[in-house]
């Protein structure tokens, strides 16, 4: 576990992530919380299972923090991602970015979630009433790697 970027098998605590970026220089903290949604394109999810290549994932989360600091030098970022079995409404990811002014906190937080979906080795398996499937390639909104990809919503 990195100090501000980590993968956890335990439920995530929003306040804990926010505390890591709270500071006297910041007037704004944007937080993105990804939760498990019940319905995706009318299909009912029972629960999700997240798997990760943990040491690499934590490095990649930290890299996202560095990328943010290149783009927004005044930003401070913390990211926690949960793995294992998650039920509907459980929190999968918490991103917190603090900046002196609010516009940057929104932009940097948005950047973080997009990058997570691109480079961080974490995989989600959806469990439905009639089956299960590892989801991938979310940026292209299709399930992977079925023969004919099924449209999947972005979280």
């Amino acid at each position, binding site marked *: 576990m990195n100090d501000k970027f980590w993968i956890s098998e335990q439920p995530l605590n929003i306040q804990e992530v926010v505390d890591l970026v709270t500071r006297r220089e910041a007037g704004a903290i944007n937080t993105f919380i990804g939760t498990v949604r019940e319905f995706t394109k009318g299909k009912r999810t029972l629960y999700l299972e997240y798997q990760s290549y943990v040491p690499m994932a934590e490095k990649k989360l930290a890299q996202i923090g560095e990328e943010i600091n290149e783009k927004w030098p005044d930003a401070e970022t913390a990211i926690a*991602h949960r793995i294992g079995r998650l039920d509907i409404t459980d929190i999968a990811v918490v991103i917190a970015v603090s900046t002196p002014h609010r516009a940057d906190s929104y932009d940097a937080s948005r950047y973080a979630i997009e990058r997570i*979906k691109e480079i961080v*080795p*974490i*995989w*989600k398996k959806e469990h439905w009433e009639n089956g299960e499937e590892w989801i991938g390639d*979310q940026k292209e909104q299709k399930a992977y*790697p079925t023969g004919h990809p099924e449209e999947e919503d972005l979280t």
Partner: protein
Amino acid sequence: MNKILLFARLQEKAGQAEVELDAVNKSIAEVKALLKENYQMEEIDTSMVAVNEEYANSDVVVKEGDTIAFIPPVSGG
């Protein structure tokens, strides 16, 4: 010898999370081909590869002790 890590669908297909393999002096492309053949894993073609926890190109040559991970398209968040 080298440790090969498999995740998500690749892991299920192989029936194991980890394979021991001597990939020393082979390129990542060659290791991919080897695994694809041995485990019938077409998904390998659309996977990224990490060597020692960092993404690596197909032409990178594996060294003794390197850990190679196959990274299917990610779906975190």
